[in-house]
């Protein structure tokens, strides 16, 4: 299945994704909390960006007591049914990654729904750090990358020694 995945080696923390997501949330819910988060740790000069992984065995889905979360048959995304959601917050507690939040205005859960299959965060990622595709693609890119990185590191080490 396709998910939004983050290639952290490419993310420059411009926050376009988070802004665009919050604009979309505001269009549909009058709440502008985003469902993709860019974290910049200035103590360690580190960047970490993450969003819902649409887990195959989704703890949020299992934890929901009200049928407020369902799996979209078309996109396979776990989506919130705003009418059924109680706002109990069980899914927030169940998500191991903190990828669900509670809307401030509506008091219902809010999470990434892949924008129905055309995620806007990906569209605004100028660095091409965000991709919409099969998670296996990410893994493949990672494999390729780590091999290359080892080679680059070796070159840098040689340079430093010379």
């Amino acid at each position: 299945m396709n998910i939004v995945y983050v290639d952290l080696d490419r993310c420059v923390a411009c926050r376009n994704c988070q802004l665009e997501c919050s604009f979309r949330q505001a269009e549909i819910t009058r709440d502008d909390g985003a469902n993709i988060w860019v974290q910049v740790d200035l103590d360690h000069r580190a960047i970490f960006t993450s969003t819902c992984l649409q887990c195959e065995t989704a703890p949020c889905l299992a934890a929901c007591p009200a049928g407020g979360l369902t799996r979209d048959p078309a996109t396979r995304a776990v989506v919130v049914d705003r009418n059924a959601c109680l706002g109990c917050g069980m899914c927030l507690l169940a998500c191991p990654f903190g990828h669900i939040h509670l809307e401030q205005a509506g008091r219902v859960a809010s999470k990434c729904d892949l924008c129905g299959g055309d995620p806007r965060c990906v569209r605004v990622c100028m660095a091409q750090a965000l991709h919409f595709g099969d998670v296996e693609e990410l893994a493949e890119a990672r494999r390729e990358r780590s091999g290359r990185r080892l080679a680059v590191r070796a070159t840098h080490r040689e340079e430093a020694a010379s």
Partner: protein
Amino acid sequence: MIRAVPVLPDGRVRTLCRMCDSRCGIEVHIRNSVLADITPAPDNPGNQGRLCPRAHAALDLFYHPDRIQTPLKRTPNGAFEPIGWDQALDEIAGRLKAIVDQSGPPAVGAWKGEGVGFFQQEGYIRRFIRALGSPNYFSNDSVCFNGRWLGHHLVNGFWNPFPYFDQADLILLFGSNPPVCHPPFLREFADARVRGARLVVVDPKLNPIGCWADVYAQPRPGTDAALIWGLIRLVIESDRYDHDFVDRYVVGFEKIAAYAQRFTPEYVEAESGVWADVVRTIGDLIVRNRPRVSLYAGAGLEHHPGGVNTVRASVILSCLAGAMGRPSGLFWPESPRLASLDSRNLFLENGGRPIGADRFPVLAQMAGEGHSLSAVNAMLDSGEHRLRSLLVMAANPAVTNPNVLKVREALSRLDLLVVSDFFLTPTARLAHYVIPGATFLERTELHVHPKYQTLYLAPQVVRVDGIPTGYELWRDLAGRLGLAEWFPWPDETAVIRHLLEPGGWTIDDLTAHPEGIQYAPLRFDRCLNEPLPTPSGKVEFASQYLKNLGLDEIPEYRPPEAFLPASPEFPLTLITGARKSLLYHSRHGNIDRFRRVHPKAEAEMHPDDARNLGLENGDTIRLVTAGGALIVAVRIVHAAEIRPGVIELYHGWEEAPANLLTLDEVNDPISGFPWLKGVPVRVEKI
């Protein structure tokens, strides 16, 4: 609601985004005659199917409820009343004619801003003012861009601001925040980084791009030139620069080699605060990664009185690093064979020298424009050289020029101020007449992207009855002043046909290729095979031209104290002009969803400084400089985010203009730039 007539009732129109100068490919979606969405065009090499959130704001601007849709005339009680198009132009032309008859054409000036676009729009304005017989063309470029443009042109005669970063082994960013200012750079940076390229970021403010760098250096504002000279010294000392290049192409190497001697890493540390070891590390990275070095000088380098020299030094460093003639470095793009709407040389021959040419001859001679800060003085002048009338095209100097109180006073004294814009900006509110401005969606215009040597036709997407395109305004005004022969084309399409003539292209050719036509093959080594457009035809590390004008032959470093002696009255340093991601200078503050992200003006401060001043986050402070004072909230940032002793304030807030604090009378002697970054400041708790 605006009376919009899209070119199609349903479908997509392919064009270029002009919300900034990156010119990304976009598709505008039209549904039921409504502009519904803007999505990235799939095959533009710059944005490659992605688009920053500012692009979509073109629709917010287009449909904005506050948009001016009819000419406005200021009434004696200060309110504006809508008037008809013909009445507006008749009255403006009548008053212009009277001023020209009484005081001569130079009493009229034109001022271009970035609000409506670039290139072709600038051509119309330059052409109009020349037709009128006045040399007084001004622009926003005289407080941004021209410093870098001159710095590059003085050394090697060209400037391509868009190198191929993805082909670099080392990228050095000085005073630039590309994730906000140049979004298309990001893909190239990421490609380079993933390939193993190194990144060095030099900026008093730690932006996220600095978190991504191998080396981040946080200099004292205004001392970048000391660091650059230190790096020049290290590269020369390493003896790993290209001797053959220096022998064949360079004028003045010995002079810069001798001058560089004093810039030891320890001296650089004492001047800039960047540790000597960090200076050595950066020097080492340059030497190891030459010649594939991309050095990008951002606006941070030009916004102070030593700006042009700093940029010149950065170009010299690039040359010594072997960047000349390489895609990742300095290359000289070719221009397409287009007819010109205005030649800068003719402009100068016709009607004498523009205002400011006596003080800043380089700006007038090379950029072909007057000095906008001197123009403000000329408006306040009571003598025979008073500037009496100004035609402002989508510029907002009442917010974005330094010393805004003086600017507002000057604009208020004009006998005729005409402003064309989308909204009643603080500048437009001072106007006698306001003309509704067309957004880029309403115009057909040519664009040239020098990086790809591509020519584009960006077609009109929508027409709005009653809002003139840029061309129509100047054509109709010129016609009423008896200058119709200067604007003989009936519409923009005819103008474009005229522009395309020398190159033999047709509108159909360009329409058939919305992805653009490459007008000449890229020859990155052109600058090594043809004489350069400098006085000597070579790379001018030393400039006889500047020396003859009594200016610095080589780009000497001067510390900020050389421009304004250090004073205990102003113990801290103010930097302005760092961008916000969704705002564009003074624009877009009226888009609600953007405003929620950037709700209010805040001065950013280091926690140590806040502690010393007894300030808590959100406290109200008064900032005081030699130029003025401003009351604003304080935001205490992370200790790593800003250099201690430095306060940062965004420059585009209408309600809290940083330009109350900036200094218009302390200028770069070459570009005439004001002091916008590194201004001595005092903070008072209130």
